[in-house]
């Protein structure tokens, strides 16, 4: 139980801290790397919620795929040498206000709502086979569509990113 | 009657779609491939139409009995159960032809074929043009073969869109105006028709083919049987206020297509702005849909209203005939003149329909076919002269008979056919319409004969202004009509001549159905036994 608590606070800390780095860091490369830790922390939280399969997926896709993408994006769009690498921010103060309000609201609501936590919420044994079944039964259509979306995204990304000659 | 397990009517309807796909796959630079594909497709369609014509059993009446229909294809298309407050939606893919539709099918196939020839040298976006043309072809054919109201309406709208683009993109200087006008007019018609359809839908029930419980239906033939009208439903009973209202809505919907007098002003603009082939299709086929729809739907479904308003129809017909002729006489633009002459000639169809007897209706249906061929010729002729001289001003010409003798020859045939010269098909249908109408509406018909003189007057006046007199040296160099244009015109001319001499070729197809329809309407739609062969 204690271990659980520790794990929880540990991961939450990682997540939030790295997330704040992502958000507040002036150096985009730093943010990118911080984001990596955020994802890792979130994955940990997944584990704590007994979503082992998801945790793995998270690590694989986000850290393995998306992060790489983003890093590529950073590298390609910022000549690392010049000052462009420090990215400016706008409307910081008003945004601050809004976000503060938002966070306040959300937290307040999460806090004050009394959730109907099901008594039998003991969590799951092993999720992967179940998820597999569900994906191929109830969620077959979304699953297929998702695959198509991915394909389209693949092709589309290739198309768009292709550097065509300026006529 | 099947080929590759698909019925003749489906073939004849969807061949153009195949052609459309083929054309879409072709590179747009390769104009030859495109035009030859389109030509081949329309030719196949023509062959199919001929097949229908020759294998059509002249003894069967059709109209309201599925046994009487021929080449029938009937499969459940949309079948949704338990729709809230709607019950079960049951739409059939129901095709079939009888004596009313076969001439129209022939006409559509013929005109489409001719139209492709006529649009051989479209400069602008040739590929897109042909695609639209073929799509339009499917729409038109579908309207004439579908026996399910839902299907009918779908085809009706399918036909509307390509027409809008064909006028709006490939048209003349005022094309946008004309296209929008055409579109809005037709849309208004469609809306009214839709209202009538809905009213009918919620009044007519048939036993479900599978379970047998009562369901609403779009089946036209079911809608023609008074026994199928739910007691107490909106359109139940006979000669009720709502039935008249529905009939009028339906009538206006079709009248706009015909076009009947107050709703006709889209026609001159559309015809003038549209490219030649499209004017040909407009006048040749689209106008017929109005009268066809009235005969196929308005009359058998609302026989009481049809009888009740036949005098009004006759009056409108009279207005169309005389008013159209007079307007035509005043025109300076060749194409506008032909357009108004269409108004006048369609008036004859209406007159024949208002007769409510065999001669009249036979004349009307036959006039629909003949007007299709003859007006097509007229518009092609205008197209020929416009391609050469790039003007349609009647007073700009003169003496073309000397510069273009061949052209003048074929034009003479067309003009005299249009003014109803005996020996050419136009006369017979007009004469029958008048003969029939006289027995029902004596004085209106006598008044309408005035149109015959007026038509002769403005046709001959035009002929004189354009072709006779001293040759206008400005057009001295005009080349005579060429082989392609002849290929489009001569078949129509031959048909006109043949049907003028021996109309039975076409009439035999219609008589049984028309007689049945007349009987059916006369009996107020009371179930009529099939007439003996």
């Amino acid at each position, binding site marked *: 139980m204690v271990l659980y608590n520790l794990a929880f606070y540990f991961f939450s800390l990682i997540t939030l801290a790295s997330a704040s780095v992502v958000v507040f860091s002036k150096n985009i490369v730093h943010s990118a790397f911080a984001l990596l830790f955020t994802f890792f922390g979130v994955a940990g939280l997944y584990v704590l919620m007994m979503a082992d399969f998801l945790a793995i997926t998270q690590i694989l896709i986000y850290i393995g795929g998306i992060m790489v993408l983003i890093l590529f994006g950073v590298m390609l769009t910022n000549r690392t040498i010049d000052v462009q690498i420090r990215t400016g921010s706008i409307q910081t103060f008003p945004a601050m206000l809004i976000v503060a309000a938002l966070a306040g609201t959300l937290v307040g609501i999460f806090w004050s709502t009394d959730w109907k936590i099901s008594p039998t919420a003991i969590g799951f044994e092993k999720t992967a086979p179940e998820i597999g079944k569900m994906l191929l039964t109830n969620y077959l259509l979304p699953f297929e569509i998702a695959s198509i979306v991915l394909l389209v995204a693949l092709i589309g990304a290739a*198309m768009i*990113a292709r550097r065509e000659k300026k006529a | 009657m099947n080929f590759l397990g698909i019925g003749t009517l489906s073939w004849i309807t969807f061949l153009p779609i195949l052609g459309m796909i083929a054309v879409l796959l072709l590179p747009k630079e390769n104009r030859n491939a495109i035009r030859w594909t389109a030509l081949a497709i329309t030719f196949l369609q023509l062959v199919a139409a001929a097949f229908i014509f020759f294998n059509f059993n002249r003894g069967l009446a059709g109209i309201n009995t599925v046994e009487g229909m021929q080449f029938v294809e009937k499969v459940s298309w949309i079948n949704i159960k338990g729709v809230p407050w709607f019950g079960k939606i049951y739409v059939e893919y129901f095709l079939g032809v009888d004596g009313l539709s076969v001439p129209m099918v022939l006409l559509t196939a013929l005109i489409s074929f001719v139209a492709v020839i006529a649009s051989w040298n479209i400069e602008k976006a040739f590929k897109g043009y042909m695609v639209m043309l073929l799509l339009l072809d499917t729409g038109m054919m579908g309207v004439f073969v579908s026996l399910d109201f839902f299907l009918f309406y779908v085809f009706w709208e399918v036909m509307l869109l390509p027409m809008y683009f064909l006028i709006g993109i490939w048209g003349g200087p005022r094309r946008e105006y004309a296209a929008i006008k055409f579109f809005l007019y037709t849309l208004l018609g469609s809306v009214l028709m839709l209202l009538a359809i809905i009213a009918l839908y919620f009044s007519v029930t048939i036993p479900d083919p599978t379970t047998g419980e009562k369901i609403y239906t779009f089946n036209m033939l079911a809608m023609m049987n008074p026994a199928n009208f739910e007691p107490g439903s909106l359109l139940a009973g006979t000669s009720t206020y709502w039935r008249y209202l529905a009939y009028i809505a339906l009538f206006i919907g079709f009248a706009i297509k015909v076009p009947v007098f107050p709703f006709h002003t889209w026609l001159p603009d559309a015809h003038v702005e549209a490219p030649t082939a499209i004017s040909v299709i407009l006048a040749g086929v689209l106008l017929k849909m109005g009268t066809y729809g009235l005969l196929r739907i308005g009359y058998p479904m609302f026989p009481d209203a049809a009888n009740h308003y036949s005098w009004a129809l006759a009056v409108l017909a009279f207005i169309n005939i005389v008013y159209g002729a007079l307007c035509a006489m005043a025109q300076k633009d060749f194409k506008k003149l032909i357009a108004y002459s269409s108004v006048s000639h369609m008036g004859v169809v209406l007159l024949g329909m208002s007769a409510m007897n065999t001669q009249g209706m036979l004349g009307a249906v036959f006039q629909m076919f003949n007007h299709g061929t003859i007006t097509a010729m007229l518009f092609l002729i205008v197209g020929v002269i416009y391609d050469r001289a790039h003007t349609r001003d009647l007073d700009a010409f003169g003496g073309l008979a000397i510069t273009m003798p061949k052209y003048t020859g074929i034009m003479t045939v067309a003009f005299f056919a249009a003014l109803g010269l005996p020996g050419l098909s136009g006369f017979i249908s007009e004469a029958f319409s008048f003969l029939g109408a006289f027995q029902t509406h004596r004085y209106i018909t006598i008044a309408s004969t005035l149109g015959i003189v007026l038509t002769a007057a403005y046709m001959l006046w035009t002929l004189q202004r354009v072709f006779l007199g001293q040759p206008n040296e400005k057009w001295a160099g005009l080349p005579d009509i060429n082989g392609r244009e002849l290929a489009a015109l001569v078949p129509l001319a031959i048909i006109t001549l043949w049907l003028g001499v021996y109309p039975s070729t076409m009439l035999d197809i219609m008589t049984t159905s028309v007689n049945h329809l007349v009987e059916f309407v006369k009996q107020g739609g009371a179930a009529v036994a099939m007439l003996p062969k």
Partner: protein
Amino acid sequence: MQDFIHWLQAPGLNHFLIISGILFSLGVFAILTRRNAIMVLMGIELVLNAANINFIAFSRYITNTLDGQVIAIFVIILAAAEAAIALAIVLNIFQNFNTVNVDELNQLRD
């Protein structure tokens, strides 16, 4: 005070939700404030993660089914796709305008 500590000692649904809420807000902040398109993207990723946490938390504590997790999977899939496309667009924009600052991109034609 006492029960707050007590609350802290028993991490449950609320905890996760609050984490996700904060994460969400941070993401939104990034989206709102940063001029660099890629930063905006990162913000979006954060938001998505926050959402995922919610999904899983609810499926864990309330419905006690795996549906939430499946949804989360889809979210991840879409996030991947979205990232790919977005980055491609960013690259393209960069090639055409030589900048990735969203506030300078007020036209879609070049």
